[in-house]
């Protein structure tokens, strides 16, 4: 018996398919709403997915499991300054943090814009003092030459590793390694070139930089003993939270802060920032997709409209079917299957359209789009539901027809 039912269903499908093919233009116009709806859902979700992937990769390019420690703001006479004003963080803080269990490594950073000179050429770039752990923390290896060692940091050596943009601007096509550049009138030997990193989330060219040992920066260029920031890499994603509290406890102790006083530093968890950015991208995607889903509903109304017309047009056929013994449920089923096939067809065409749109956006604009299977399955199911939901009323109307009146209809 189930085999027969299955066969009957197949016959119904075939008949629905044939019916819809007889009126190709009308069927196509009917499902246009569904096509547009599903297409825009697929396209918008793929843009959203692409955006959140982009955010993820930018965040990852800043270094993985990263925490940033900034000096605190000062409050003098009620006037509060921004972060990073107080000279409260030192290189020794950084070295102490490095010994914490949840911390893999760290790098004290001190940066400022400076003019760099090589022979007759000069270029204003961002000079960054960093520890030897910089490539590991920022996930940013050198492309050519070597990075400076811990030894060179301790001895405050005059060595520099330059970013790709700075290298091109200063040296053009010449290999900079081994050349002497002047920063703030101090000579530095170029020992390496960083690999290309690209732009960061704020649109800054990360490759426009020169990295020198933090100690050299403090003593010979900035003339300070403190650092702008300490970048910390936790051992794992889960460890970022532990590291955050360990660092807070350690720095409070090192800075002799009494219990009732606030911290004179801030610990920022980049993983959390990444998650926040991601969730805002998701919210945006959901918003766009729901607007697109509204057009799916409108498409459903189109289906209902045409199915009502179709039921009226085929009153005679319904009468014939009733006369030869069709029951209410047979007629109901026939029209429900028709509307479902219609909307499912629309869904499939819409998915094709959505993938097409998404691929062209990828090809012709800087936005990267990613089509995943999830929205495809969801919109297929959704369009099927639209077909059943909006097809129900016309099918119900058809099934309640009086055979005598239906047969008399011309």
């Amino acid at each position, binding site marked *: 018996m189930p085999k027969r039912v299955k066969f*009957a269903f197949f016959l119904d499908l075939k008949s629905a398919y044939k019916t819809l093919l007889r009126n190709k233009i009308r069927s196509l116009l009917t499902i246009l709403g569904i096509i547009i709806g599903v297409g825009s859902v697929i396209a918008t979700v793929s843009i959203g997915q692409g955006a959140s992937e982009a955010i993820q990769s930018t965040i990852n390019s800043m270094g993985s499991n990263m925490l940033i420690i900034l000096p605190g703001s000062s409050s003098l006479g009620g006037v509060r300054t921004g972060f990073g004003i107080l000279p409260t963080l030192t290189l020794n803080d950084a070295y102490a943090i490095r010994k914490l269990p949840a911390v893999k490594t760290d790098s004290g950073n001190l940066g400022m814009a400076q003019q760099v000179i090589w022979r007759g050429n000069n270029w204003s770039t961002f000079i960054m003092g960093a520890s030897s752990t910089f490539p590991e923390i920022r996930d940013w290896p050198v492309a050519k030459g070597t990075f400076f060692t811990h030894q060179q940091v301790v001895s405050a050596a005059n060595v520099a590793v330059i970013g790709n943009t700075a290298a091109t601007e200063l040296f053009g096509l010449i290999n900079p390694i081994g050349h002497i550049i002047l920063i703030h009138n101090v000579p530095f030997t170029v020992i390496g070139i960083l690999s290309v990193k690209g732009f960061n989330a704020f649109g800054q060219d990360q490759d426009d930089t020169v990295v020198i040992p933090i100690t050299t920066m403090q003593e010979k260029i900035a003339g300070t003993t403190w650092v702008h920031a300490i970048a910390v890499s936790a051992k794992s994603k889960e460890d970022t939270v532990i590291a955050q509290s360990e660092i807070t406890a350690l720095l409070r102790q090192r800075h002799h802060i009494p219990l009732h006083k606030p911290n004179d530093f801030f610990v920022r968890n980049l993983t959390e920032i990444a998650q926040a950015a991601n969730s805002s991208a998701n919210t945006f995607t959901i918003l766009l997709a729901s607007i697109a889903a509204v057009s799916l509903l409108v498409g459903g109304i189109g289906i209902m409209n045409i199915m009502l017309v179709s039921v009226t047009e085929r009153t005679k056929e319904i009468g*014939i079917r009733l006369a*030869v*013994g*069709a029951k209410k449920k047979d007629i109901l089923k026939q029209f429900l299957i028709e509307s479902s096939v219609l909307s499912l067809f629309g869904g499939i065409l819409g998915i094709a359209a959505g993938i097409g749109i998404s691929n062209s956006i990828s090809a012709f604009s800087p936005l990267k789009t990613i089509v995943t299977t999830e929205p495809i399955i969801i919109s297929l199911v959704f369009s099927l539901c639209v077909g059943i939901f909006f097809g129900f009323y016309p099918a119900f109307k058809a099934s309640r027809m*009086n055979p005598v009146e239906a*047969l008399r209809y011309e």
Partner: protein
Amino acid sequence: MNTGGIKERATSYDIPGGEPPLIRLENIGMIYKIGDISYEALKGINLIVENGEFVSIMGASGSGKSTIMNILGCLDRPTAGKYFLEGKDVSNLTSDELAEIRNKKIGFVFQGFNLIQRLSIVENVELPLYYAGMYSKEATEMAMEALKLVDLAGTENKFPNQISGGEQQRVAIARAVVNNAPIIMADEPTGNLDSVRGADVMRFFKKINEERGATIILVSHDKNIADYGKRLITVKDGIIISSAVIESQSMV
């Protein structure tokens, strides 16, 4: 309201312990209501039809013959009286139960052929079997057999608009007999045909009646067509005014 003194002939129903008649209408009334206006189409119809009969119902338009037909064919329910089909009261069944009876017991042939244009000839003939829950090869074989009966073997894959009106009506006959229904209802089956094709169609009703033993109830306003039957019932103003055996049958 009675049948005006027309005496029904003795039937097996009158014999104690005998088989009930195929069809028995008992004081059937039908009132149509359109808004506040009501119209009495049937005013107490009593009728017995035995198995294997060929009954012609004649009457002018508006006489109520189509209404009798709709009730006999279980397409409609009477507003008064009782309808016994094979001894079972069917006057108060639900629409799905009536559909089941139409599917199993009754075949229809209408004036306008009423084939589904979208379906091929064989698919049209298969339709009652489909709703009887029969699919597949078996149904197709039965449909082919029915088409052979009306001399239309070989047209099964054509569509209704590719064959003549007479042939379309024969397809409708094939569809009516495909499920071996004991009753065939024919409502002005030759109304849309010329006399030659009409006679051709009538030949098959005779054949089905004589060879298959199916009971045929024919509604017509044309005496020549009605004369194919063996009994003539005349309807006027919602009542049966005469019921008589047709002696000499005109043959064309």
